[in-house]
């Protein structure tokens, strides 16, 4: 308990909490993506997978855990952001980067807000939306993604996810002190590759649904 309190009371410990929760969410993204790719296999395969998930007896506790991880990841980050704003009450008239910041790192808070808004919309439409028939999640998903506005929205948000991960994946490792001249370049490369792969693989689905599967069953 003492160890936990010492970590929770420190800026380093709080950042480690954000990093650990972020890495868990990276794992979730991998699993979610694997499921999504079944859309390419076909309606029956995807609906069978959806049915398997929805009848999983521990679905609700898992969903609750996932929601808690997302909210905690966001809440600790907001707390840290507020302390950071308090740490510099008067800003600069001119501020120019000397090359440390990246697109990913300097937009973390914006991509985070985008992702949070997306999650609400995504759950409201795909989890609680009206399906063509009770067992046809494929029909619901493709119904939305065939509309170019939804497809563009999904593809853009996935770009945001990629940007968020391009900094977050490596940053989490650095926060835990995982750093070595021999391995850090590889860790950075794997982080960037993971970010790009996740963003591209998720974004390809709406593009495929909208432009290739348009008008097809």
């Amino acid at each position, binding site marked *: 308990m003492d*160890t936990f309190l*010492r*970590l929770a009371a*420190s*800026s*380093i*410990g*709080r*950042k*480690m909490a954000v990093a650990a929760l972020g890495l868990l969410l990276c794992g979730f993204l991998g699993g979610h993506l694997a499921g999504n790719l079944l859309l390419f296999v076909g309606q029956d395969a995807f609906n069978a997978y959806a049915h398997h998930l929805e009848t999983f007896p521990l679905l609700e506790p898992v969903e609750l855990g996932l929601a808690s991880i997302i909210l905690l990841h966001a809440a600790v980050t907001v707390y*840290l952001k507020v*302390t*950071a704003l*308090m*740490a*510099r*009450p*008067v*800003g*600069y*008239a*001119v*501020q*120019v*980067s*000397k*090359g*440390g*910041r*990246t697109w990913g*790192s*300097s937009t*973390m808070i914006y991509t985070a807000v985008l992702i949070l808004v997306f999650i609400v919309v995504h759950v409201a439409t795909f989890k609680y939306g009206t399906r063509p028939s009770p067992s046809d999640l494929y029909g619901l998903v493709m119904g939305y993604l065939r509309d170019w506005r939804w497809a563009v929205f999904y593809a853009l948000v996935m770009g945001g996810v990629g940007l968020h991960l391009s*900094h977050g994946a*490596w*940053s989490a490792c*650095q*926060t*835990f*002190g*995982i*750093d070595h*001249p021999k391995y*850090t370049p590889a860790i950075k490369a794997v982080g960037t590759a993971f970010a790009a792969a996740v963003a591209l693989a998720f974004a390809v689905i709406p593009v495929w649904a909208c432009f290739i599967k348009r008008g097809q069953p």
Partner: protein
Amino acid sequence: MKVTLRVWRQKGPDQPGRFESYEAEVPSTDMSFLELLDTVNEGLIARGSDAIAFDHDCREGICGMCSQVIDGQPHGPDKAAATCQLHMRKFKDGDVITAEPFRAKAFPVVKDLVVDRSALDRVMSCGGFISVNTGAAVDANAVLVPKDDAEKAMDAAACIGCGACVAACPNAAAMLFVGAKVSQFALLPQGGPERARRVLRMRSAMDAEGFGHCSNEAECEAVCPKEVKLSNIARLNREFLRAVLVSPE
């Protein structure tokens, strides 16, 4: 060559401040930025005005006193250089150069471009040292130190405590400074006995002084006049985790 200096003027710690502009003739592009400020101040004093207050001491890049943000970058646009090592050849005729004090809650403005950086000293006093028994001097090579560790410790010890890392950090964090100070001792056998206590106390003091958290944006590393590496922050994180999880402290 002529430039316009746009300088933050503030009479005292609790006074409101504002930018004032000064036209300055640059007699030689080989003069340093601080020498240009000296020239402007001579003119101000001759006119009976208050001179621009700015910190400086060694003027050879080793004391860390000349803390200013010039054109949006701590210590100005040069790489691996303190403000005193910034020369006017870096600018061109007609440039408007903005000089501001370091901005952080932990670095309150004293006057004009001078800030109080004693927060860093207070963090150091909590553990940035080793305890040594007095007596006869120990033989210089009695304790063996691996070459690689000695090099890393020396690189960390190059930190001059100027605070540019804090000034550049989007969160006004002092993690690179504390990381360097923790690293220079953690890497050497002499720092071993107080290793856990040091990192716990310095981390605690760092947060108490009101510095922000690290979001690994690496601006600190980019502006450091001594090129202290970000790996020192990773080492600080490791040292802290080790101290909290497994040390008896």
